[in-house]
């Protein structure tokens, strides 16, 4: 009933607006002149609005940086992450400079050259020298960014992983399972066809390498300063292992092994002090749409000293014994 009444009210409101608009148009026509012709007054108002918008836009962007700047992720907790953060700072700096030059220019011109009946535009149609300049300068700046960016990327993907500790992250709807190598330092072969009972990631328990593998569920430990090689698998659909604080992200693809190498540099305790948040924890999120609970697929990571890590590892049960 209420909905019917609301619908009737809506129709009446629209009908009234139609009549009001009609009246406004007719009265304006009676006064003479074309309601829809753009007048000098319109140009002055709109030009002014353009300029004021520009001030408002610049002001609000500065306000947002000030208000929300410290809500962003804290500085990276990995070696390559610091390189990424530096590249980001420089790129952001360039972008912000270009932004604060081009936008005011656009809106200032819109205001300054607002039309007048008596006004006269200039016929100037091109300037090849100018085109050359504003092609060359972006090209140079972009070349610098490209070179810097590709070197950073190359450092990230060409790491020497001979001393790295391998940990596998196994993704499925809707949780993560970590797999450590155990004493032999090697992960056993695994496939979904081997999944059974406690062997939820499908390790081939016939192989020697697999028998001492250790599984971690909702909370796992990593040793600080130790080069890691994360490997990723998925059981069902695409997932993405996103460790925002480490600046690590890699898709988990069914039928394919992917990997990402990095070194964590700050312990969880250190981060709790630095951020002033006693509840801080490193987190693993899923970052590729994977189904209904995609928004709640997580694992807590604790980065600790080597001793604490060894102690934790000694308390874990190898797969063959579970």
């Amino acid at each position, binding site marked *: 009933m209420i*909905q019917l009444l609301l619908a009737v009210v809506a129709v009446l409101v629209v009908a009234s607006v139609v009549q009001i*608009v009609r009246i406004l148009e007719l009265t304006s026509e009676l006064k003479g002149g074309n309601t*829809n012709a*753009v007048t000098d007054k319109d*140009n002055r108002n*709109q030009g002014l609005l353009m300029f004021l*918008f520009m001030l408002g836009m610049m002001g*609000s962007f500065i306000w947002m940086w000030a208000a*929300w700047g410290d*809500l*962003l*992720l804290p500085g990276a907790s990995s070696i390559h992450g610091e*390189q990424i953060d530096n*590249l980001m700072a420089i790129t952001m700096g*360039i972008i912000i400079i270009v*932004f604060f030059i*081009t936008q005011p*220019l*656009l809106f200032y011109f*819109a205001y300054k*050259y607002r*039309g007048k009946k008596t006004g*006269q*535009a200039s016929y*100037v*149609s*091109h300037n090849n020298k100018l*085109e050359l300049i*504003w*092609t060359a300068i*972006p090209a140079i700046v*972009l070349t610098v960014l*490209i070179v810097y*960016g*590709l070197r950073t*990327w190359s450092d*990230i*993907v060409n790491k020497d992983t001979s001393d790295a500790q391998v940990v596998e992250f196994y993704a499925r*709807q809707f949780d993560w399972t970590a797999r450590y190598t155990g004493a032999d330092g090697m992960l056993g072969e695994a496939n*979904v066809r081997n999944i059974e009972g406690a062997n939820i990631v*499908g390790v081939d328990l016939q192989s020697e390498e697999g028998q001492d593998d250790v599984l971690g569920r909702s909370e796992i430990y990593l040793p600080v300063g130790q080069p890691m090689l994360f490997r990723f698998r998925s*059981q*069902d*659909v695409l997932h993405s292992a*996103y460790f*925002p604080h480490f*600046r690590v992200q890699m898709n988990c693809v*069914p*039928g*394919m092994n*992917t990997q990402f190498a990095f070194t964590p540099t700050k312990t969880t305790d250190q981060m709790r002090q630095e951020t002033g948040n006693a509840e801080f924890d490193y987190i693993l*999120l899923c*970052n*590729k*749409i*994977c189904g*209904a609970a*995609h*928004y709640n697929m*997580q694992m807590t990571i604790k980065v600790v000293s080597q001793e604490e890590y060894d102690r934790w590892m000694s308390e874990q049960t190898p797969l063959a014994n579970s």
Partner: protein
Amino acid sequence: MAHDHAHHEETFISKYVFSMDHKMIAKQFLITGMLMGLIGLLMSVFFRLQLAWPGESFPILETFLGKWAPDGVMDPNIYLALVTIHGTIMVFFVLTAGLSGTFSNLLIPLQIGARDMASGFINMLSYWFFFASSIVMTVSLFVTSGPASAGWTIYPPLSALPQAIPGSGMGMTLWLVSMTLFIASSLLGALNYVVTVLNLRTKGMSMTRLPLTIWAFFVTAIIGILSFPVLLSAALLLLFDRSMGTSFYLSDIMIQGEVLTNNGGSPVLFQHLFWFLGHPEVYIVLLPALGITSEVISTNARKPIFGYRAMVGSILAIAFLSFIVWGHHMFITGMNPFLGSVFTFTTLLIAIPSAIKAFNYITTLWKGNIRFTPAMLFSIGLVSTFITGGLTGLILGDNALDINVHDTYFVVAHFHIVMGLSAIFGMFAGVYHWFPKLFGKMMNKQMGYWHFWLTFVSAYGVFFPMHFLGLAGVPRRYYSNTAFPMFDNLTDINVLVTMFAILSAVAQGIFMFNFIYSALRGKKAEQNPWKSNTLEWTTPVEHIHGNWPGDIPEVHRWAYDYSKPGMDEDFVPQTVPLQDGEEVH
């Protein structure tokens, strides 16, 4: 080829339904695109309600979503369906068919001096395939297992397995059917546009005298012809995996406790095929808007577009480069890292022609005599949002930086600002500017001003804060941010975004009202209300088949002789022959 329609008996069906007249077909594309857009817009308001106030009960959700929002709280599955269909509708139905379909159809024959498209019949088919595609997509919203929900990018295995998400059942099948029809429509249209521009230009209309709108629509059509078939192939292979037990994309999967028999396939293959269309697609969306902006800005600044040749060159450069950057959507898919380097290089290159265009637009305003029609406001707004969105592309295109922002709200901010602001602004500018040509009436100027300013402010208000959410690590396609304490202090930003989104949606009501009111009861337009140079304004206000009552006019100059020294008026239509002693541009 073109025959005299004057003696044709016209029925209601042949005039309004199965019309082969490009001007009527343009209107059909526009209306269908707008209606689909309203559906997509409503969906975005719904999921923004969930994001700002997660778990709160909203009776309106239950009214519209029924069983998918019990007690007014939406189900996570329908959340994913809403973002999926929202994206699909906006990118394809509104910004591809609605934008290209409308303005390529309206303007190509009129601005090049042709009686109609090369094939009116194929043109008519291209609309009706689009209509059929829209019907199927709309119907897919009502299936019991829900519409497609794997994101508008529909990556398998999620999109291949109904066991993984209910929307990947019948909903996904209908999505694929709809998109197949859509691709057919786009290809038919694009072929027509290319053939018409190449073959049916009037005497004197050389390629270098073409308005930039035509260059944009022409190049866009070529991009479409080369890229849409690849999406079709991706969709066909997906169909086979779904229904015929093939393993193009699937391998080593256990789902719902069952190990599937598929072996040897790769989900990454789908991504390559999808993005081979997907990236050019965003330029299919953007280039027509840029072309429209060139036209609207120069006409309303009463100045030639600055750097015509550079503008044409940059359209061509963007088109070429758009085919070799697709991998920037895939940096962390696990593909060979070397590919990542290649794609970063090509992606940052595409910033150069984009920058050139922005600088040329700004310089067109310089020393102009600017007339602020609503279309002009939207065009200037487009330049602003194009700069903003384009600049963040430099971060996303850099593979090292993309690692931490991929699939976060940083990406959502970027593509909405370039598409949901720039491209749609181009579409609005086109509607306001060519409304007199489409409907023979003028749109209300005051309502246009209100529409622009409310939209401009609120749309920036929706998407600019999202950069911060992305840099704080918030992933996209998350039903709620309440599962992670690290996002607790971001709730205020989400609420602010939703409020601006609601304001923006309401502002579109002003536009819809203006559109319908003006089409039905608007003041009759004069023949050349904007005092513009291009050929479409030399046709009568009332539409006739064949466009010009007598001979097609001849062209003697380029389209941008505004405020030319020594001429009587501040505009010189393309049909005016060169005067004695007049310098050619």
